[in-house]
């Protein structure tokens, strides 16, 4: 009697898994997490667009199409267009050396690549001032030849490159390590040279990781504030990136225009998140070795 009743309740116990919490705990935790995220993520994001459109579309359009804003957009795109290809080549070279070969000091090299992430943006700007500024190492020489790096576009580009150095390399290294070198070794054995192997074997295998790193690199390149702020000199129409333009407008109490320009950057951030989510699945696929 007792055994038959226990065998009847057994399936019922399985239906409510032992590794799940009570419904009320699940709901409370979910609600708590979502409230925290709404407060700290959703609200600030909505705030940008709300403040930008406070005075209507006409004011908004005017703010993002005035000459200084357009110049800022141009400079932002220029800096990203220089920084991304350079860091792309660096990322591929670094990942090739680290993932395909065994050598001493490899883990130190990986840490060095990550170094820019742990340097305060302000310090990044400062070190370039120390080298290229008027009192810096190269300062007198640059002045003699009528060249400017600090308070000019080259400084902004350099600072942008510095802060975005790790992005592509740190995506490619684990991806290429996980994929191993068998396919490349086969290509070499079949008579391909190094460049052919890189172009026809390696790059197709890492294309999604490459794209993923580029998306993150681009977001940071276009949004960087602290580092470029130190080297820019804030000359309107000349050395102002979008991110810096936001600050200038804000400090002039031109809040609607500041938020209008900020909303462009927020849209870029949303686009980045969307693309990132799409590409993420593809990268996971490639790590598993499903080259489709």
């Amino acid at each position, binding site marked *: 009697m007792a055994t038959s009743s226990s065998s009847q309740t057994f399936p019922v116990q399985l239906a409510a898994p032992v590794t799940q919490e009570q419904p009320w705990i699940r709901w409370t935790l*979910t609600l708590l997490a979502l409230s925290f995220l709404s407060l700290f993520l959703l609200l*600030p994001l909505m705030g940008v667009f709300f403040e930008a459109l406070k005075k209507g579309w006409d004011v908004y359009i005017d703010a993002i199409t005035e000459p200084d804003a357009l110049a800022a957009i141009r400079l932002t795109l220029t800096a990203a267009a220089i920084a991304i290809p350079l860091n792309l080549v660096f990322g591929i070279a670094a990942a090739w050396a680290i993932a395909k*070969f065994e050598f*001493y000091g490899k883990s130190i090299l990986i840490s060095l690549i990550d170094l820019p992430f742990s340097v*305060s*943006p302000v310090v990044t700007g400062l*070190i370039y001032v120390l080298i290229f500024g008027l009192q810096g190492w190269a300062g007198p020489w640059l002045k003699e030849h009528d060249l400017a790096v600090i308070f000019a576009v080259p400084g902004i580009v350099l600072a942008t490159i510095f802060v975005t150095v790790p992005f592509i390399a740190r995506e490619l290294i684990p991806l290429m390590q996980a994929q191993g070198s068998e396919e490349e070794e086969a290509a070499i054995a079949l008579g391909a040279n190094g460049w052919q192997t890189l172009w026809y074997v390696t790059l197709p295998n890492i294309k999604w990781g490459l794209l993923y790193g580029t998306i993150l690199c681009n977001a940071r390149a276009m949004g*960087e504030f602290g580092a470029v702020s130190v080297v820019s000199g804030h000359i309107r129409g000349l050395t102002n990136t979008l991110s810096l333009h936001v600050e200038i407008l804000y400090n002039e109490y031109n809040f609607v225009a500041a938020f209008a320009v900020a909303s462009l950057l927020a849209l870029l951030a949303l686009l980045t998140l969307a693309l990132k989510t799409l590409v993420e699945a593809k990268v996971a696929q490639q790590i598993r070795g499903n080259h489709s």
Partner: protein
Amino acid sequence: MSTFKQHSVLPGFNLALGFTLLYLSLIVLIPLSAAFIHTAKLSWPEFWNTVTAPRVIASYRLTFGASLAAATVNAFFGLLVAWVLVRYPFPGKRLVDALIDLPFALPTSVAGITLTAIYTGNGWIGQYLEPMGIRIAFTPAGVFVALTFIGLPFVVRTVQPVLEEIEQELEEAAAMLGATRWQTFRHIIFPAVLPALATGFALAFARAIGEYGSVIFIAGNIPMISEITPLLIITKLEQYDYAGATAIATVMLVISFTLLLFINLLQWQARRHNTKV
């Protein structure tokens, strides 16, 4: 050469490593060394007086205090968010998961001005807090809010993959042996995610210490009260006090590098822990 590198049939090692080292040296290492070399020009008392001036000390206290508080809040809520994202189904989950990385993707100046707008006296949140006598914007509390925003993804993104990997069998075994859900969490799940949680905490903390853009708008930047250390570097630069700016920057660099070393150790330990289980 053969002792430095293991043999491989693949070509391009010298070129790839050579380019990597050259690029890193030109862009990162040589410029960073400039900070240390410039600091070395100062005498020790000069250096010490600069980096321990009362206004600088006050900025360390704020920067470290607010960073620590923000990283702690992020550790707690980051674990909670990661848990909910991994374990519980709810509508719009993919969207929420994608939104976690917003602080990485949103430029810091944008984050700074929108947080300020929300927490000032007539902002969406500020209007309810102000009558209660709680002021966030233009106080040290504002610094904490900005740093919490900036550090949020670090804990979630380090803990999430570890939670996904935990084997349900362990939890089932614990339940069969009579453990309550809380005991299972406390003794099985929490120890497993602890290394990742510590790494996420350290990453959020390290990021917060150097943060500038999102903080300066909401901080109010009152000397001795709500002035962060990176801002002091900028202030000194604007007064052409290059030596002072560099001295403080060197202190920050040393702290960042120490934290980086600590984080690497944590990750190394976490990897060892994972392979052992």
